[in-house]
């Protein structure tokens, strides 16, 4: 699905990622953990195509194609989805309008016919029920006046409708209370499938209580300093990040 090799990324002259290696196979869930400033958000941004970053070395191959060459909308149409840490508001544009435009641009790219309004509503309403959201959500402007939890749920709704192949969740648990966290996690779990992969970027272990990862990677100072199974997250919860950073510094 995704193969990242020796990836170096800078913002301006400042190196942020310093040689990331990561292999993600279809159906796998990878958690990227790490302290603030370790480069977690940079990684999700560079994979989804946000501007302002320079790749100085290395590569990222997605389904056999050079991911970093593609403009962001092509990545999206090819099935890369970023659930934003801070979803933006778009006043006056209804959720349902954005969703339909997005879905049709993706379908068109994949050589499928556009969905008509009726089929689309049926599809969307099903997903809305799945995520225990109010249908009124659909007709409100994108994220405008939404609470933190509503915004995050809205991201998962978009994911459920667009059915991406590679889902990147950037600090999806931040700002969520425990009930919202449960609903969001259930939404993500319901989307797990053998041909869909997830990259979950998170600071805290608690999200992993609800979405069980196959692999956990610890990012510190722009490098993956330790990789392991789900149990690594529990170890981090107990010991914090400093022992890994110290270990790296002394290595």
């Amino acid at each position, binding site marked *: 699905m995704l193969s990242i090799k020796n990836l170096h990324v800078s913002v301006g002259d400042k190196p942020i990622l310093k040689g990331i290696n990561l292999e993600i196979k279809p159906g796998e869930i990878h958690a990227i953990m790490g302290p603030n400033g370790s480069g977690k958000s940079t990684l999700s941004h560079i994979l*989804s*195509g*946000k*501007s302002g970053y320079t790749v100085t070395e290395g590569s990222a191959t997605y389904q056999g194609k050079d991911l970093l060459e*593609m*403009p*962001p*909308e*092509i*990545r*999206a*149409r090819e099935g890369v*989805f*970023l659930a*934003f840490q*801070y*979803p*933006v508001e*778009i*006043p*006056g*544009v209804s959720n349902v*309008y*954005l969703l339909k*435009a*997005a*879905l049709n*641009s*993706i379908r068109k*790219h994949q050589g499928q016919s556009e969905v008509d309004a009726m089929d689309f509503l049926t599809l969307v309403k099903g997903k809305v029920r799945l995520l225990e959201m109010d249908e009124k959500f659909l007709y409100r*402007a994108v994220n405008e006046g939404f609470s933190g939890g509503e915004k995050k749920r809205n991201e998962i709704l*978009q994911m459920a409708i*667009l059915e991406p192949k590679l889902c990147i969740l950037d600090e999806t648990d931040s700002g969520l209370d425990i009930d919202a966290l449960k609903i969001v996690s259930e939404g993500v779990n319901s989307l797990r499938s053998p041909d869909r992969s997830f990259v979950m970027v998170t600071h805290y272990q608690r999200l992993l209580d609800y979405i069980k990862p196959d692999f956990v990677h610890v990012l510190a100072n722009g490098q993956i300093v330790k990789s392991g199974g789900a149990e690594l997250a529990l170890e981090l919860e107990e010991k914090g990040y400093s022992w890994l950073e110290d270990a790296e510094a002394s290595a």
Partner: protein
Amino acid sequence: MSASTQEINNLINQEYKQGFVTELETNTFLPGLDESVIHKLSKIKNEPEFMLEYRLKAFRHWQTMKSPEWAFVKFDPIDYQSISYYSAPKRKEDGPKSLDEIDPQILEAYKKLGIPLDEQERLAGVAVDAVFDSVSVATTFKGKLKDAGVIFCPISEALRDHPELIKEYLGSVVPITDNYFAALNAAVFTDGSFVYIPKGVRCPMELSTYFRINAANTGQFERTLIIADEGSHVSYLEGCTAPMRDENQLHAAVVELVAMKDAVIKYSTVQNWYPGDKNGLGGIYNFVTKRADCRGANSKVSWTQVETGSAITWKYPSCVLTGDNSVGEFYSVALTNNYQQADTGTKMIHIGKNTRSTIVSKGISAGKAQNTYRGLVKVLKSAENARNYTQCDSLLVGDQCGAHTFPYIEVKQPSAQVEHEATTSKISEDQLFFCQQRGLSAEDAVSMIVNGFCKEVFKELPMEFAVEAQALLGLSLEGSVG
């Protein structure tokens, strides 16, 4: 190059779609303006004597006036002697009696513009008056409207057939001395629409006028007069396009609306005159005076405008709220791209008691364009309990354009309530990236965000126009990102 980049480039290079020229034999005056031209004009239109007097009086007054310089627009002085004041497609002596007699080339031109004049192909329920350069070439559904008692005809025809209405109402809202361009218009106006809705009649269909400038080196001087008698109701739409030329052309219009007691007039404009090329060459100067008099108690006038065309727009559709409890509304979207300039807004003059007005203005600037909102809310001593609400929002696309707001508020009545809200925002990179990450191209994303910004105004437009306006906005923004 990836597919989407290719797509964007194709879109950016798309030309102004209405920019074609129709080759026709015309009857066109030589350029120049003096009293003899006005005599000739009045004669060719077979006008009653009082109209010639009216025109000459206006012309003499205009000669004493100076071109206004207070608007936030820049242009070289206009040489009024280099403009031709009349151009009409040649036709048989009496003019066409039915659509079959209209030059097929003209019918074809309107078809290309998406306005089939053939009633069989019409948009159901919309009557069209088609003004081509200086003359009205066709008015559809006249018969059906006549049955309802509605008069809908070219104003040049009304001058001959309904002189009593013209005498009473023409210039009663915008006097010949009102301003420089209004005085010029009064002297040399050629055609436009005339509407009279009798007492208690609800006009059975939408009325519309489609203005087309075709001939080169001409000015178009449109004059429209709509009278809604007591308790009547009418919705009127206008659309405008012109060919692409390197020279600037002048469109100086005057529109007067009169609403009597309990009457309602809804007036919608989708203005898409040629805006000039991306370097600012050519385009229409759209210098327009539009004003409504809510003369009777409980009357209501609602202006909705979507202004995407013209090199320069100078236009303030206004309401004089004379009648007690009368209501004035102004909903506006003005979009400027490349080197376009717009100075537009409204005036709400509260005279009667309990008069109310609402102003919602959305200005969008892209490229190197300048967009100005200028609005006056005036509450006279007599206007007890008058209320106004103004909302004025500006959206910037890119970092080389400008948005400006000049609100004027004059209140002489202590019981009045006047509210003004204004915002300026920019399409953020985060919004763009978010939309792109959902699969939309940058162009589509901008168009979607802008449409969202304009939603409050678009919902005031009649259905068919709302769709057209959205599409137009998308086209006008092409090339504004990336």
